[in-house]
């Protein structure tokens, strides 16, 4: 009897291997982006983080997603990648 042959229902993709950027040696003088995803209380949380980063000598830039339910617009991702050395995303409520 012939063996069953099935067609693969998956995307047949291997996850893209992305190289992690090197860790920053120091925060002093570095520009760190803080991304608020528009969840409640995200602002208060990121305000605290911002104070800590400034005390460590970092420059801070703030960003905001229009809504947490949707992926960030490409323009926003590009803006952050151009303007910052690192980014912290305020993920949950």
């Amino acid at each position, binding site marked *: 009897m012939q063996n069953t042959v099935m067609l693969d*229902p998956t995307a047949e993709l291997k996850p893209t291997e992305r190289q992690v950027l090197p860790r920053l040696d120091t925060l002093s003088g570095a520009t760190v982006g803080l991304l608020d995803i528009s969840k409640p209380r995200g602002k208060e949380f990121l305000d605290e983080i911002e104070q800590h980063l400034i005390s460590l000598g970092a420059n801070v830039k703030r960003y905001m997603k229009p809504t947490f339910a949707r992926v960030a617009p490409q323009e926003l991702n590009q803006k952050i990648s151009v303007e910052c050395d690192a980014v912290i995303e305020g993920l949950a409520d």
Partner: protein
Amino acid sequence: MNQSNTKKFVVVVKRDCPTCELIEPALKQLTDQYKNDLIIYVQDDPSFPESIEQKADDTSLEFSYTHNIEIVPTLICSNGDGEVARTFGWDKSEWQRLTGIDSLGESLTDFKPGCGSKTQDPGMEEQLIARFEKNLLSSRSIELAESEDEMESCFDRGWSDGLPVIPPTAIRVIRMLKQTSRSPDEIIGKIPPNKVSCTVEKVAINAVLAGCKPEYFPVVLASVEAALQDEFCMHGLLCTTYFSSPVMIVNGPITKEIGMNSGINALGQGNRASATIGRALQLLIRNVGGGIPGGIDRATMGNPGKYTFCFAEDESDDGWATLAQDRGFTRLDSIISLFPGEGLQPIVDQKSRTAASLAKSIAKSLQTVVNAKLYGAADAILVVSPEHRRVIRESGWTKENFREALSENLTIPASDLIIGAQGISEGMPEVFKDQVVNKFRDDGLHIASTGAKAGMFSAIISGWVARGEKGGQLVSQKI
């Protein structure tokens, strides 16, 4: 000798054809005359015709399929440049003319129709396509070992939602693909959450897995296109911690054509079309999009509708607009609408005999969507039962009248809804304190109708709290 002028003949026959058996003497005559310039292909029994030694085995049907043989016997006449003529069945004068043998089959009857070629047997076409159209499908083939259980192997490979799936063999996938004019390699869109380009073929494979009959496939394709509309926000809906997932409502002639249930137990189990169409989209998002529960799917509890949640609307009352009509389509259009939701929340009202009473009664229940103290927080679908619909219609109201009455009853001062009011911390922000608010945003309450003729119960399908432009909303797609 100039080969291109040499006539060559091919005859395709099968034993299980009385006409083929009848013309055996004529075939013998042809063989004697043309010898190596004649080939007789036999589709079923390579020993037939016994009186002729020189014949070719076409039990694989490769020659018959690749030469579009529909009837046996078929006589094909060719020269060096290819086929120049063919005839099928037994038409003595035509066979004599094409072969140039005036005495061919002299003793036989003048005319006898042939039989269907084996390539035309039921279910054979897909088998032949799978066998001979090697470039049609591009998905990876996975051959199971002899000892492997095909059902279990689908579970083992992670293709299932937890229930058994139909193993997606090439033949089953081809049957599915035959129901669309779209090419298997056409890209239908990018499936979230991994944003993977998805072909029509991959949709077909997942429709097979889900248990769809081929005739459901156009609805499945439309459901995928609906899910990919930006307004639906499938990505966020899959990722959310909230309960919601796609709820499908199908309208129009297609619901009758494929046997969807809009009567008794319409939202329940037991109807293959409803069950498997809803499931196909979920499996596609799992298998192609990578939306795995506990992975990118972060639902706190989820809901049972994440297996499947699909139903047809009862369109038997011409005076009651269907959901598709509310969305700008006609009753003649076949439409699938997708709503980010979960539920059901039943509404019992066995006492109301007027539309006005029923509107007040149902509005009371609708106030509890998400939380009785949260207004404008989520959309919803109100599913009106035929008996409740009858009460509304007997009051002389249209669906629009009923919707307006609901809206009036769902508009209240917000003072009692504010955070902390009624001793409950949850509630509306203080800024609403002196405002009048509606439970639903504009276009946030949809009304559909389905179910059995008996039962004065309607139901609420509550929506995702990320509603409207901030998240997802009802979308409709022509099938």
